[in-house]
């Protein structure tokens, strides 16, 4: 069985899952052409 501490960890992990870090959080700010992620069609090149 999970301990009380482990249940607490799982709850926090689940909460954090809803606001994940974004790669741009680790990058210099780009004023001119910032990242603007959005869903694109699967047939477009992604990388």
């Amino acid at each position, binding site marked *: 069985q999970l301990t009380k501490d482990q249940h607490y960890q799982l709850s*926090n992990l689940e909460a*954090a899952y809803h*606001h994940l*870090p974004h790669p741009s959080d680790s990058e210099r*700010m780009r004023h001119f052409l910032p990242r603007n992620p959005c869903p694109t069609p699967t047939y477009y090149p992604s990388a």
Partner: protein
Amino acid sequence: FDDPAGLHEKTEFLLREWVNMYHSPQAGRDSFKAFNAFVQQMHTQGILKTDDLITRFFRLCTEMCVDLCYRALSEAGQSQTMIRAKCFHTLDAFVRLIALLVKHSGDTNTVTKINLLNKVLGIMAGVLLQDHEVRFAEFQQLPYHRIFIMLFIELNAPEPILEAINFEVLTAFCHVFHILRPAKAPGFAYAWLELISHRVFIGRLLALTPNQRGWGFYAQLLVDLFKILAPFLRNADMTKPVQLLYKGTLRVLLVLLHDFPEFLCDYHYAFCDVIPPNCIQMRNLILSAFPRTMRLPDPFTVNLVVEHLPDINKAPRILTNIVSLIQPASFKKDLDSYLKSRAPITFLSELKSNLQANPQGSRYDIPLINALVLYVGTQAIPLLQTKGVSMSTIAPSSHMDIFENLAVNLDTEGRYLFLTAIANQLRYPNSHTHYFSCALLYLFRQANDQTIQELITRVLLERLIVNRPHPWGLLITFIELIKNQNFKFWDHEFVRCAPEIEKLFENVARSCY
């Protein structure tokens, strides 16, 4: 507690001033001109008078930056890009201030600089942990993540002042990341993994720091990562948040396997000690690592004679003090005595009870079993140097007595854990892989009970049926087991106990043949 009257207002004023100065075109190269002017203001406001005031100033600044971010994040109708721009506008300025204070404090006295850095990092960790505890599910990682990563990048700029203190800077960050490990701040776990897998962080710790001095720190951080995942993976409790963290971990391990396989080789023992036994693919990933200078012979080579391989007698590095893991000291003493002279005679009969413990989740002391297996094996290998390690030379011996005793007297769970410990040494060609491969095959051949043979087969099979990679030592051991007629592998009942199992063995054997 008890901030002096007016300090909050002064700090807010100074922080606003600095943010404006930082973003001004007149700030000068690397904001140095602005910094000089600002330090004067800090003196005027009395902030730099005492250590206590400096500490409170940083704490208040951190809290203000964090509060600003929470307010921005709660504003409706703003895109994520706009919110981040707002937050980073202040956070990046604050980071620059810290970096400049660290760089320019104490003149050439590096101790002063590092003390200041440790102080600031400690303050941030404290604010984070308190915030995490108070807000619980509402905790936001963004401000802390941004401050830590941008500060790390700034303090790893290629400047002489910073190069002179680089190792101490790395140590300070590794220390604070260990304090903020996911077990302590699970709401920060995803950001934490981003931090420790950042390309600059990995580059500095594993590639650029001479003599692999950063490797031990990084190994500790990976152990911290495995420890948060362990209970959920052990229960196969793969909710989406856990899956995401697990996949992220696999990505990091793949990068390490590709770029720094020697690192995984050196620390494989410490990692396998904390990875649950059912995390087979993740463990295989680590065990598959081999030195980049080594060319692995194809395990499917017909008539491969493992004993003739050039590296087969070389001992791998194990950077864990396994001797210290064999506790209590009286047990270690008896173990050494038995290995030397097969005395006391009660050692074998008491062995099982020494391995049983009562930690939550297991009836056995898994780290002790792992340490015992590796220790006994590494004690045996030097004694076989003249004869060479093979199935015919490893027994009879006091070492194999212990292994046979464990195979026979433990229950199925204990046997499984014991055999897993042996299988964890089946890696690239080296003396440990060879010895433990022979030991496993010897136990299979000598077993007077088919259940032991079944368990050995189970331990090998479960590692083979998961997706790649598979360790070289695992492959050659299994190939030997199914091809060598002496083992009569295909005559056993468990090979044909169910159509899926029969098919599984045939598929694995087909790929082996």
